[in-house]
């Protein structure tokens, strides 16, 4: 069964309320990295009915991704952008999904993300996280940024939190659990961190600026 745009929108309004849904309808969110954080986050934002998503990742789905990222075996070898959009279209085909299968580098940060209300850093490598944050803050200084750091392993989910830093950077995670320390990334805790990011994005789009 395929719902019409009106049927699906009415169902969102019924659950989220008219005012909130109106804000989500016209919102644009950029996600840099579609791994464990970014793929789960995109699913959340599509379910919320966020009107426009910009999805950026250079990589293809690999067997090592399936333990935590929102992909399945049939996606192996396919660019994450395309594999994810197929799922998002199944959740809500009436939103705008803009995909870029390319690496985020300093010189394309403005082109990719200048139209976004909020940008989410959802990379895996710490030097890439730092690179993106530096470039967003210098090139798009007014843009709220939601970022993730510290979600590896099986420590308590209660240690994962959202902190406001640098005025309008929202850092989600426990801040310390590092894959470099031999901790594996595991689905539940990565999803908790992703849900922190999703909640903060939602709050920002509604006009709430505190974690």
């Amino acid at each position, binding site marked *: 069964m395929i719902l019409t745009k009106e049927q699906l929108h009415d169902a969102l309004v019924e659950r989220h309320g008219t005012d909130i849904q109106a804000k989500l309808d016209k919102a644009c969110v950029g996600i840099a990295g579609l791994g464990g954080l970014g793929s789960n986050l995109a699913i959340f934002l599509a379910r919320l009915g966020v009107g426009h998503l910009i999805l950026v990742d250079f990589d293809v789905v690999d067997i090592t991704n399936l333990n935590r990222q929102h992909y399945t075996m049939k996606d192996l070898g396919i660019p994450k952008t395309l594999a994810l959009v197929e799922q998002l279209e199944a959740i809500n085909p009436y939103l705008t999904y803009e995909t870029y299968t390319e690496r985020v580098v300093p010189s394309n940060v403005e082109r990719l993300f200048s139209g976004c209300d909020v940008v989410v850093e959802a990379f895996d490598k710490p030097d890439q*996280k*730092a690179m993106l*944050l*530096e470039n967003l803050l210098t090139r798009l*200084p007014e843009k709220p940024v939601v970022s993730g*750091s510290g979600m590896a392993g099986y420590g308590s989910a209660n240690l994962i939190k959202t902190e406001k830093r640098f005025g309008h950077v929202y850092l989600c995670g426990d801040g310390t*659990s590092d894959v470099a320390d031999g901790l594996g990334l595991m689905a539940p805790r990565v999803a908790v961190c992703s849900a922190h990011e999703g909640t903060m994005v939602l709050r920002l789009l509604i006009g709430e600026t505190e974690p």
Partner: protein
Amino acid sequence: MKVNGNERAVPAEGTVLSLLKELGHDPQRVAVEKNGTIIPRAQFAEEKLTDADHLEVVCFVGGG
């Protein structure tokens, strides 16, 4: 000076890079704000610190 809200002595070499070394942070994994302005990584070695500076350092660990 203050680093993430805590009082601290300005490092002997007096730069952002020397402070990061003292704190044990990899300069490739941090974002640094001095008195509300982001300091690009390329300037860490030259950016001078004084007693009056407020530094905010965000450190990243791997995983996503």
